[in-house]
């Protein structure tokens, strides 16, 4: 709050030209970025929105066709599979990585030895690309070379683990890999949250004789509740934008069973030359993000105001 009051105001009275030029420098430096961001955010979005309402096919063209592209998009079976996959994936991915992340954070929070080592291990997947992760996991899922082959080699010859090559279950292969990649992220945020809780709160609970389990359930976890929401919102964003992971892991297959909206956009725009419908699908992705992010940002602003009011 106080930052606003301290803002440096540019002195108003008449000044020599050098000084006046000097006061324009910030705007001149900021200008190009502002223009670029404006173009990137508004012009690009408007452009794609317009293409989605046009009869563009192989090349963009600007004959207006209203919502035709959206109608054919939603009539498309593949798009519906993509959308269902997105919901299924988001649900399991968010719950899975938050559960694993929270467990890891609590374990590490027990004053374990070598904390930095554990953290490094659980977080390293975030440094590598989804392409690397997806490629390696596609090998592990491969029935003839990967996990199934290994377990069978140990003598368990009936063992079957062919998630990624079975069209009904391939989506779970994507989910498992996604959780593997990003539960470390949830862990990092939860751990930061747990560490920021006022230690007096915990001490008071300990004096009252509360068990560790109870302290987590009644004191620590409720205090870091906003972090759960933040993690969920970020994970939903990841999920809606999911492209690389699937492209490297299953390529949308077997068949079309692991198609995602982002994969669908790419396919329509660059493989099938249906730019108009591809743009409509991209706009639907943006809409999905907005449905999540707009209420969340209002909530964040509201909470900040409330806190500022109390302070």
């Amino acid at each position: 709050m106080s930052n606003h009051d301290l803002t440096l105001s540019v002195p108003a009275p008449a000044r020599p030209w050098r000084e006046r030029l000097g006061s324009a420098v910030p705007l001149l430096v900021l200008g190009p970025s502002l223009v670029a961001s404006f173009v990137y955010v508004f012009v690009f979005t408007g452009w794609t929105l317009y293409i989605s309402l046009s009869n563009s096919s192989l090349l963009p063209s600007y004959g207006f066709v209203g919502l035709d592209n959206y109608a054919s998009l939603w009539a498309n079976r593949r798009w519906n599979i993509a959308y269902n996959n997105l919901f299924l994936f988001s649900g399991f991915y968010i719950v899975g990585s938050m559960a694993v992340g929270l467990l890891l954070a609590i374990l590490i929070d027990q004053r374990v030895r070598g904390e930095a080592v554990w953290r490094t291990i659980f977080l390293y997947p975030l440094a590598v690309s989804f392409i690397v992760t997806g490629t390696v996991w596609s090998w592990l899922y491969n029935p003839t070379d990967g996990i199934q082959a290994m377990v069978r080699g140990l003598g368990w010859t009936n063992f079957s683990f062919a998630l990624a090559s079975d069209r009904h279950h391939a989506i779970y292969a994507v989910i498992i890999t996604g959780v593997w990649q990003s539960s470390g992220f949830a862990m990092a945020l939860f751990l930061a949250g747990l560490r920021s809780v006022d230690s007096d709160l915990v001490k008071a609970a300990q004096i009252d004789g509360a068990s560790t389990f109870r302290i987590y359930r009644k004191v620590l976890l409720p205090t870091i509740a906003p972090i759960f929401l933040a993690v969920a919102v970020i994970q939903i964003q990841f999920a809606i934008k999911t492209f690389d992971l699937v492209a490297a892991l299953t390529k949308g297959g077997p068949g079309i069973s692991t198609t995602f909206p982002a994969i669908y956009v790419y396919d329509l725009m660059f493989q099938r030359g249906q730019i108009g419908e591809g743009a409509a699908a991209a706009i639907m992705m943006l809409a999905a993000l907005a449905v999540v992010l707009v209420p969340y940002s209002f909530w964040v602003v509201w909470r900040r105001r409330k806190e500022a009011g109390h302070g």
Partner: protein
Amino acid sequence: MVDAALDQSLDHRAATVAARRHFLTRLVIYGLLVVFAAIYLVPLLVVVLNSFSDQQEIARNGLISLPRSFRLEAWSQAWSTYCIGGTCEGMQRNFYNSLKMTIPATIISTTVGAMNGYILSKWRFKGSEALFTCMLLGVFIPGQISLMPWAFILGNLGLSNTTYGLIVIHVIQGISFTTLFCRNYYVSIPDDLIKAARIDGAGFWRIFRKIILPLSSPILIVTVIWQFTGIWNEYLFGVVFTSGQQQPITAALVALTASGTNVRAYDVMSAAVLIGALPPLLIYLFGGKYFVRGLTQGAIK
């Protein structure tokens, strides 16, 4: 006397029970940590081991087995001779492409972000907060929205299928992030410092050089790491706007693993995967603290 002795032995028993319980809890905690660590490390271990083994051995024993040989051939093949879609130069060219794209894009976007952050925190003007919010929206826009406009712009600038085109994209996309990071950091530098400097007659650039920049290293490291790993690992723009020899390493990796002949050369592919993963992994290992800081800051704010 007897009571006291009894008390003591009860105390003693209670203490041993507590100690045993403590020991069991510790065992469970470390046990779980070890299990999870194994789940996280096994994929990496598999790739590392296979990159040093013999392809026929992998074909015989599967991917997950202890190697019986140690060879470096897969690495040299993956680097310089393996064939991807007709050209047999390995990954080296794509590795250089990624470097040529990532380093300039990181430097430019970080520099611009630092200047923007400085202005938006210390030289605010009417409406600057609103402009900042607009810039922030760039963080959330999915890449798919910008594909068609970029295709048009790069085509007209003559930059399609070039590394320069990707640099332009990553700089413009990155500005939102770098501005956000730097602005949120600079806000915490006391305004009184700046006021004092202005009274002493220091101007815009001098204040940046003498006051802001010397305080900036933590946030600049965070931003550089964030941008470098993000741009290095990016795939969508790479695969859409470049092809063949011009592709960055992520796109080349997908092309390489998809170009499946009958026998999958897991040894070479493992080495290739590691070549692609190594730069961000090294940065993570050496700058882990800053990497995590970027992650949590980018997330919460």
